[in-house]
């Protein structure tokens, strides 16, 4: 949407740009247009109980590419339904989780995986939190040791007047 008020030079500083709508949860709202998409009737794929379980665990880890903040388990976007069907089909064929993820990443890249793969790019992502815990605990111990050292060199009270003078300079 665009504001069509003519630009006023004097108040240009205060003139706004185009205002915008809140795009909240775009995908929970389906625009009617999408319904014009053709949905082909596909045969039901029966799964064994173990396969149902596999699917149930796998789908939340896969990201919908249309509604990018939903998983395939949640999403009702047409592409998500298609992909869910393909994944179901692969499960029925006895494919492993790794093979199914390979099928998807070959087409859409690592973006489809809500659980990023562990590779050199993501070492920091997966190991970082452990590193952070270690750093945090070390810092804590260091602090405790510091507090036990006698503080001969530091002045215990800071003279406010002196600081103020310092600041004024």
């Amino acid at each position: 949407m665009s504001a069509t008020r003519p630009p006023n030079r004097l108040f240009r500083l205060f003139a706004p740009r185009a205002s915008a709508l809140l795009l909240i949860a775009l995908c929970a709202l389906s625009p009617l247009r999408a319904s014009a998409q053709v949905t082909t009737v596909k045969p039901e794929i029966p799964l064994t109980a173990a396969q149902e379980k596999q699917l149930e665990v796998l789908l939340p880890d896969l990201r919908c590419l249309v509604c990018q903040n939903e998983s395939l388990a949640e999403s009702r976007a047409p592409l998500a339904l298609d992909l869910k069907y393909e994944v179901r089909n692969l499960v029925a064929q006895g494919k492993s989780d790794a093979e199914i993820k390979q099928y998807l990443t070959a087409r859409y890249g690592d973006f489809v995986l809500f659980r990023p793969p562990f590779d050199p790019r993501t070492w920091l992502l997966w190991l970082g939190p452990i590193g952070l815990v270690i750093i945090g605990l070390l810092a804590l111990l260091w602090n405790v040791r510091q507090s036990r050292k006698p503080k001969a060199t530091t002045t215990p009270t800071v003279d406010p007047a002196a600081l103020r003078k310092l600041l004024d300079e």
Partner: protein
Amino acid sequence: MIPELGHFALILALGIALLQTVAPLIGYARRDAKLLAFAGSAAQGQFFCIAVAYVCLTISFVDTDFSVAYVAANAHTDLPLIYRVSAVWGAHEGSLLLWMFMLSGWTFAVSVFNRRLPADLSALVIAILGVISTGLLLFMLLTSNPFERLFPVPLQGRDLNPLLQDFGLAIHPPTLYMGYVGFSVAFAFAVAALITGKLDAAWARWTRPWTTTAWMFLTLGITLGSWWAYNELGWGGWWFWDPVENASFMPWLAGTALIHSLAVTEKRGLLKSWTALLAILTFSLSLLGTFLVRSGVLVSVHAFASDPARGLFILIFMAIVTGSALLLYAWRAPKLVSIGELNLFSREGLLLFNNVFLVVAAAAILVGTLYPLVLDALNLGKISVGPPYFNAVFLPMIAPLFVLVGLGAVVPWKKGKVGETWQRLKLPALAAVAIAIVLPLALHGRATLLAVTGALLGAWTIIAASQDVWRRIRAKRQFITGLTSVPRAVWGMTLAHAGLGVWALGVAFVISYGFEKDVRLAPNASTEIGDFTFGFVGAQEAKGPNFVAQQGEVTIEHGDHSVATLYPQKRFYPSQRNVMTESAVEASLLRDLYVSLGERFDDGSWSLRIYVKPMIRLIWLGGVLMFLGGCLAASDRRYRLAMAADRKAVLDGAQPA
């Protein structure tokens, strides 16, 4: 006319905010009491202007004045009155005005309640809040003016996003912003203390109630957001680790750490520079959240339409505000010396552990949230970091916190004794273990690792937290005098900690024992999920004030008796040509039954999504308990009495202890 008045009030507020910043700083440098005293008046004048602007926008909405572009984009003549009022903060421009309204309100409160503080500290705090106001007002006036006129005037507005037409959403942003913005007061206190170089126990005591108040609002805001998402998004979930949720959760974690480190600084005079840093970080994370949500740098379910100019503005603003605060910190913090020995096994030692885990958890969420952006910026490809990552990283990281909560309630300041602690905690520990085994089996007949762990940590937290209050009551001869002798701060802490335990129980049970199923049902067909039979009667048309709906009827039976009949809807809002699912929930403390209506098939059957969510209410109940705990703690009379005493001590020229 009214929109122009609002616009003018905003410009005036900008002028006042500039004065509010500059005058006290000059006053501080020159030690000019008059200029220092001007801070309070400026803060009150600014609040008045913003209030006028806010009322003007509200009037424009109530009158559906479509000559205002923002109103035309977010209102409709059919929109019910309550949502016209809440539509003010329904999109970017208005929500900024709400932010600003809250900020000036907090500043106003500071100017009123800080009268007892040393004049220079009080004025500096207001000046720093003035910096933030100036930045936000510039942002609004330059890039996001809510009073922008639209010509030609449309006959009809484009209506409020239907997802926002919900009571939960009407009150969620104001509470959330109260929290975000409230942390700016703690930030201002920290920066002011870095400037004056005086960060002591009295400073911590002044800062605490402000921080607690901001924290309790943020807690409530997040809780409401979670509840709203559960009701409105139709996914049956309560937390999705979406960037926008993370953006609110990181300041919450940092703010929680801040509340606890402030306690250490107040009681023991320790962790001074750390507390100052936490105060800066907590508000900076709020700003970061604003940037992430409004700039479009991350994929989020709940992003405002992105505009690079806006993103750039917030980025520069953040760089200036946080950057200068951290620069000041790097320069002045080495001079903040904490004196006193720190023992690991003491209350302050345990609180330090609490801080490590909370801050590291916040940092880990930050890493996960920003990792895709960083990889993309380095041209290393696009990845997603989603719920599986966050759950795997976050849950183990906060588990130790629960153990700490129980210990912290009994271990004294300075130095604790292991034997004594064990004496006092062995019964609670035993009780928690018993509950952890019995509760999952009694309610669901099978135990999972997560359910047992959650019940163990939850029960332990609740029992250990309550026993302190119990002991205080028992110490008095009469129950009632005992009850009233417990200070509000202790009640507050206990309630908040118990809330944490309640939350853990809810989380563990809903993950362990929840069911969900996508089914396709023809009218009069039924399906079984868990112990329940869901029967689909059929669907028919229903009409609302500004929508038409397909309304399903679903009966739920448990064994032979009927539990409930639910009416999930699929709504069509003609004004925005949008379809929205309105799920139906039969709620109770022990389990929710949740049905949302999907698509209709050609043969007359419907796809339905059905969830059984055990104890999901406890998650929000926990949040509400934490909020109430915060209310009690922030209103403890100790702060009010102490303020007067401190003021007197300062006037007498003594160092407040």
